[in-house]
């Protein structure tokens, strides 16, 4: 091997090791960039179920004593206008999962399947259910009613 070849071999080796180092650097920087993008919170879409809410109606659409049934998250919900204020109750009976109906005269929710009876606050009055109906949060914002998950 003469000196020139040795020189050429050295250069090739330097080139290859620079290529390898450069490729690794690019790869590592790319991965770190991807991780930073992942960690950066998605704008205005931060997952927070407590803040999720759904508009039900205008306040004057549901007179006192009336109720409106809506779907929230795929689940039927009764939004009731009572004398004391608003109440949102899951319409799913805690016994076998049938849909309860609002009785405007007696102010009760009754289950057609096994005659479970709940009062307007969701508490059990009679029948096989043991647990009260699930309550949802109700809020009124600028003349409109909203419901959201969680007690309230």
């Amino acid at each position, binding site marked *: 091997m003469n000196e020139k070849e040795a020189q050429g071999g050295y250069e090739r080796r330097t080139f290859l090791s620079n290529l390898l180092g450069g490729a690794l650097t690019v*790869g590592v920087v790319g991965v770190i960039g*991807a*991780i930073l*993008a*992942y*960690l*950066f919170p*998605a704008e205005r*879409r931060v*997952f927070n*179920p407590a803040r999720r809410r759904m508009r039900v109606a205008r306040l004057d659409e549901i007179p006192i004593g009336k109720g409106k049934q809506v779907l929230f998250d795929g689940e039927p919900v009764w939004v009731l206008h009572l004398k004391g204020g608003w109440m949102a109750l899951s319409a799913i009976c805690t016994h076998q*999962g049938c849909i309860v109906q609002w009785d405007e005269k007696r102010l009760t929710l009754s289950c057609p399947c096994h005659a479970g009876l709940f009062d307007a606050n969701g508490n059990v009055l009679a029948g096989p259910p043991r647990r009260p109906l699930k309550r949802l949060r109700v809020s009124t914002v600028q003349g409109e009613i909203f419901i959201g*998950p969680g007690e309230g």
Partner: protein
Amino acid sequence: MSAFARVRELLRAELRQPAPQQLNTWHILGGLTLWLLFLEITTGILLMVYYRPSVDEAYESVLYIMNDVQLGWLVHEIHRWGAQLFILLVLVHLVRVYFHEAYRERELNWVVGVLLLLVVGAFAFTGTLLVWDQKAFWSTDAVRRVIAGVPLVGRAILYFLWGGTELGAGALLRFYVFHVGLLPWVAIGLVMAHLYLVSRQGLFHRTQLTRSPQTYADVILSGLIWVVLSFGIVLTLAVIFPRELSDRADPLTYESVKPPWYFLPAYGLLRLIPKAAGVAGAALGVLGLLAAPWLGRNSWVAWGLGMLGIAAVALLAAYGWRW
């Protein structure tokens, strides 16, 4: 000479050490699983940032990761496909070590390796439930029913692992704790023991060593190529075959689910013979695997046992897949 240059010089000297001639691609498998473990831990930590281990939020938070977080779908898919490749490579590594009879005079390390295999299985099992969709729920519930049927200890095991006899909020939280809080430490401890024993006992018998032109730099470079290649495979699978979640887990709507491919042999065994006997059979299989170095003292016996074992596992998997 600066400290940096000194460290570099030391590393270079190490890399210039001649490596045994027999060192080839097969020996990279173990290191490759270590790299995939690193990948799983990294993506797992990233997923923990957005995941919520409660019945009310688990499914929604996974959907959030997949749909809303930037590159969240990619991190989730890398974690899932990385796990599949991880399990596959661990199995290939085990078969490689067995048929090269590398466990001879390294019986302890074989046992550590089999324990690591069990830990990997536990990772896969606990991790599957966390997405809390119908598939995850009912495949985990099938295992619950099997364990509940085990006489004497079945219920105790359920109370410990599930936090009750039903699959619910308690079980989800426990599985999460096992998956991210307990198993990683067990795995890291076992991996350290595994590597320590490898470095202590060497890759080859002294008598087998021959002079060779390859150095450890060559070995590490080809290992690095495999690392990049496996990452490329995982990325490709993650992009081309992302998994859609099935419906949100609903304890009232039964769904019949097949277990993932790596649990098919156990599933086939439980299908083939009554539950209690099937559980006993699976336990015997694990014990047999642990005792492999002592069962196969003779090379021919070891080879025959290995072939029989692989045939049995393959047949059971086929049976489980078919029915």
